[in-house]
């Protein structure tokens, strides 16, 4: 039998999996909000339904999946030590879940006190998460642009949470609190840091590593790996100046900053698509197709932004921000996350089964962890739901089929991920039984 090698302190598999298995359920909840509240949800970005859906997707689907991935990624790929990962996950995961429920309820029920509860829960959960992650990322022995970009992304999450908590306080204590900041400027800066400084920055940092590694493409050019994240960070800082310099003059200047930021993001998407077109392996697996769909969504987002800027009669429509939101959230971020989950969970299954003493005889192949047909079927439904959601922005009467398709796609994803977790449990038990029957026990079972 192959001797058992002991592995570095990778977090227990339950640490990322508890986040991964919760995330799609809240995507399904967001879809149900659209089904239940119907076309009026899509009247404007400020409708209670649209705000609740947005936060169910960004906080519970995206943040949940991104926190779980980061805990694992930083330990395994960057070789950093995470402080007591099981404890951190046991505190952060239920708190984020609860916080998202409070926040979505606050928007739907328009209950001020719920904003305050949500803010307190998020500040506690993400305060712990950010502290642990910042220490790990500052101490990691790993070098390279990806690590620098991940550090900036963690800073982006800190800014987003701080501004989000300020917004929740403003909404929760409306009668008691006077602030010098305009509510709209606060929201603009919160959204930009959340989607640009945290989520997109994380996608960019991870892509510099995983696109060449898993999709067998050439590496991103060195100048691009510096220009895109540094440019994005600089533009976010300039965008934030609207908090301290409001007024009509600033508005023109700010729209210029936003346009350059959107062009930079579109340039990154085009560069990624070009790299993917030069990959060495011809067959396209679901992860590659999800990434491609995500980058196309980002390109269409950038083009739409330019059209909205040049044609104010279109850009001024209340539903224009919803169009952009659908392209950004289900289109860009959920596509990347789903594609990555389909790669990460089989890989973690394999890694942890090896760690338990699995061999090629007792561990399944990476490709057997989630059936290819199930991933492809869910992917088709995801992109169909995306098309329906975009169509529903134009014709709100389509809200019901769009909401149902999106809910079904999230539930199918959940089913596929549960399947992967069950494969892990089945083979872990088999390995334990075979080791218990043999002469040697592994040193870390």
């Amino acid at each position: 039998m192959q001797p058992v090698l002991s592995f570095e302190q990778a977090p227990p598999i339950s640490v990322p999996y508890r986040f991964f298995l919760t995330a799609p359920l809240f995507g399904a909840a967001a879809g149900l909000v659209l089904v239940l509240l119907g076309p009026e949800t899509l009247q404007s970005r400020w409708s209670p339904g649209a705000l609740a859906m947005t936060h169910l997707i960004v906080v519970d689907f995206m943040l949940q999946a991104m926190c779980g991935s980061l805990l694992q990624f930083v330990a395994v790929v960057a070789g950093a030590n995470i402080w007591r990962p099981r404890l951190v996950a046991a505190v952060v995961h239920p708190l984020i879940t609860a916080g998202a429920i409070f926040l979505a309820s606050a928007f739907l029920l328009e209950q001020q006190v719920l904003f305050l509860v949500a803010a307190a829960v998020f500040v506690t959960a993400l305060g712990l998460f950010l502290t642990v992650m910042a220490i790990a990322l500052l101490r990691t022995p790993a070098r390279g642009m990806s690590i620098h970009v991940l550090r900036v992304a963690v800073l982006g999450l800190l800014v987003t949470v701080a501004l989000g908590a300020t917004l929740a306080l403003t909404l929760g204590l409306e009668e008691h609190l006077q602030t010098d900041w305009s509510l709209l400027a606060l929201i603009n800066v919160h959204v930009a840091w959340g989607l640009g400084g945290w989520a997109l920055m994380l996608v960019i940092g991870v892509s510099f590593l995983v696109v060449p590694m898993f999709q067998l493409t050439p590496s991103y050019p060195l100048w691009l790996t510096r220009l895109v994240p540094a440019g994005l960070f600089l533009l976010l800082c300039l965008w934030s100046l609207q908090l301290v310099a409001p007024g009509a003059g600033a508005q023109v200047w700010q729209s210029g900053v936003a346009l350059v930021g959107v062009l930079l993001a579109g340039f990154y998407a085009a560069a990624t698509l070009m790299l993917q077109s030069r990959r060495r392996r011809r067959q396209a697996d679901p992860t590659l197709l999800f990434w491609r769909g995500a980058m196309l969504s980002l390109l269409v987002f950038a083009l739409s932004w330019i059209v909205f800027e040049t044609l104010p009669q279109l850009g001024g429509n209340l539903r224009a921000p919803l169009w952009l939101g659908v392209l950004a959230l289900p289109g860009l971020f959920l596509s990347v996350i789903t594609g990555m989950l389909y790669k990460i969970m089989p890989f973690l299954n394999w890694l942890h089964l090896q760690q338990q003493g699995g061999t090629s005889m007792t561990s399944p192949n990476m490709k057997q962890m989630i059936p290819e047909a199930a991933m492809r079927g869910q992917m088709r439904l995801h992109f169909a739901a995306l098309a329906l959601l975009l169509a529903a922005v134009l014709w709100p009467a389509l809200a019901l089929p769009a909401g149902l398709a999106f809910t079904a796609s999230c539930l199918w994803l959940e089913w596929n991920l549960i399947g992967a977790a069950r494969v892990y449990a089945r083979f872990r038990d088999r390995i334990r039984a075979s080791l218990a029957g043999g002469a040697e026990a592994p040193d870390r079972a």
Partner: protein
Amino acid sequence: MPEPRVIDGRGMEPPEPLARALAELATLAPGEELVMLLDCEPLPLYAILDRNGFRYRSERRADGANEVHIQKA
């Protein structure tokens, strides 16, 4: 000196290079060398080598590949 064993992991999809390395390490005799050619810096592998009594050195070649030489310590 026996001929080193070589794994050319360039163009392989992860975790295949790591899986092959683990299989070779299991039978690596003292004094024998395993050479890996990779597109990336294999940090998970380094961690496993450190904990299991292997020494290694890696160098970036002119063609951009990472060449990792592994022996039993």
